[in-house]
């Protein structure tokens, strides 16, 4: 039968071997992390962004690299999902972007700080994370049949800004109304005025005035106008 001495030897040897292996692997990991995370892209702006990220405890609600608090969206790929314009608009006034929804605090960041945070999130977006976050593998199954406008046909600004609140073909946010067949209901002139300043058209609406350029508005109006029943059944 196992003696106490043998049990102690098992504990000591096992612990020593595993600790040494851990130290060795840690040294090796630190040799490889810079390449895998593109450490050469850590500019002073990125470093300042990380500082802001830490000092406002963003991880206390959001997750980044899957680490955080599961109360607010995962931000690892937010730079490619929403794009810098959305992030800027969100940070300028969080309450405007998701009216009536789960709220984010307004930190009153100045434009320089917002740029730093965008730079930080852009750097995070470029990391090789061994396959995280995964592609949704069931999305084809769950899409309604005869879906309208596959995402690659849409204007980029639509995919980044509009879908945060509006759904199209069953995908997107649920803050504002779905945009399926919106071309049936609203004409190009109305849409143009609306996108310039929603409040001017319909005072009290929850939709914020978005940071859109003229070409972007033209592109969006053209896209929205052709979302009609007869065009794409």
């Amino acid at each position: 039968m196992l003696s106490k001495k043998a049990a102690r030897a098992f504990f000591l040897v096992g612990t020593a071997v595993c600790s040494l292996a851990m130290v060795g692997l840690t040294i090796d990991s630190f040799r490889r992390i810079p390449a895998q995370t593109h450490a050469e892209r850590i500019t002073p702006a990125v470093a300042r962004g990380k500082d802001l990220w830490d000092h406002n405890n963003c991880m206390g609600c959001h997750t980044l690299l899957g680490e955080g608090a599961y109360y607010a969206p995962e931000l690892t790929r937010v730079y490619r999902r929403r794009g810098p314009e959305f992030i800027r608009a969100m940070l300028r006034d969080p309450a405007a972007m998701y009216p009536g929804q789960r709220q984010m605090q307004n930190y009153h960041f100045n434009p320089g700080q917002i740029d730093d945070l965008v730079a930080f999130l852009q750097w995070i977006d470029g990391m090789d994370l061994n396959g995280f976050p995964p592609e949704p593998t069931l999305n084809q199954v769950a899409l309604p049949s005869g879906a309208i406008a596959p995402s690659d046909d849409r204007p980029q600004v639509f995919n980044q800004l509009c879908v945060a609140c509006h759904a199209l073909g069953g995908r997107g946010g649920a803050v504002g109304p779905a945009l399926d067949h919106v071309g049936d209901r609203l004409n190009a002139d109305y849409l143009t005025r609306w996108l310039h300043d929603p409040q001017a058209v319909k005072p009290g609406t929850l939709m914020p005035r978005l940071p859109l350029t003229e070409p972007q508005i033209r592109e969006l109006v053209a896209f929205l106008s052709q979302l009609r029943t007869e065009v794409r059944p």
Partner: protein
Amino acid sequence: MKYESQRVAWWFFATCMLLLSLQLIYGFIMGFAHAGYDNLHAIIPFHAARATHTNLLVMWLLCGFMGAAYYIIPEESESELYSPKLALVQLGALVVTGVTAIIGFHFNWWEGRKFLEIPRPLDFLVVIDVLAFIFNIGMTVKNGRRFTTTSLVLFFGLFAAALLYLPGMIPTVNQTSDSYWRWWVVHLWVEGVWELIMGGILSFLLIKLTGVDREVIEKWLYVIVGLTFLSGILGTGHHYYYIGTPRYWKWIGGLFSALEPLAFLGMAIYAVTMARKGGRNHPNRNALLWTVGCSIMSFVGAGFLGFAHTIPQVNLYTHGTLITAMHGHLAFWGAYAMIVLAIITYALPNLTGRRRHDAPSAQIAFWTSNIGMVAMTAAFAVAGITQVYLERRVGMDFIVVQREIQVHFVGLILAASLFTFGIGAFIWNFIKYGRPVGEVLPAGASDETPEEAITAGHAEGIA
């Protein structure tokens, strides 16, 4: 109680009760926010509640470990504590530091690194405070008349916990390196050296409560802490799958995490076997209930649920979802909260000199808190699995999914209310015991009543 200085443990345990109550309040704030009632948003936003909730947990568990050590070490090393006065000063300093940190959280003063939110200047105070504690315990062991495996395991567990706080203070610019070191602290604490502390307390309780021969219990203690480190140290790798660290961690982390339940399974079998075969019919049945309950719940929460969620292919989808909260709640409850409540339940009659062993409130406390926590875990599981499928597999928007799962947080709040009722009963019982005025027993006397200690002898055969 055999030594006058063991009394200081009571103050640590009382602090535990206070901090635990506060922790529950902050838990409710978050539960309501998730259910759609974020009414305190302007005063206590979610991230402040979250940091407070987890840091209070760490603080009361540390207080509990310290109290346990101040109770156990004098008895094990057969000498008075080196300095009871230092112990009280050190407790006071810890509480002041902790409370300052928590107030700071409400004013946006923190480091924003999950579980290690305490601002840097306060980190140093924590280190100094823990060093004072280690010094006090270490001197007691050194001056003691007896070295036991139990006290050595407990001492080195606490010592390593203090040492492992340091990697979290290494300055980094890279988010990945930052997380890497953070897990050295958090993981190597909870799935490493804290298990050593837990094993030490468990072994002390089993020796006292079951009457099984010390040599037998301590031999298996070595096997269990051996298994813990064998699996737990390289098991850190399960935090390194998807944060920008090398791919080989998927293999190493996956393999060693799969072994981690073995340590907990060992602990459960160990406690159950000793409790069944031990001949002593100790009057403090509730202490044994908490002790055995702890070993079983830690296997379910930390061992089984942890294993289910650390398989790399599963973790790819569950990483960063409410599944983590599910595992975290039952793991911390089973492994660490329950061991602290077990030692408190054991020590209270001896510290206060009142033998309220059979108080109905003590039984109610055990069962309602455990059923409540299992129900909470189930609510988190339903919410978490739904989140994984809708958000990660189907690709729905985060906020849309959160609205779909709000209803499960109503379930969570109901379960948490049951849990809180159980904790309330525990605290009520704690208060009923009163102050630590129990008499110090003469040398050679036992805390156990004589007729029940007699049967202790026949348990020697277990090996």
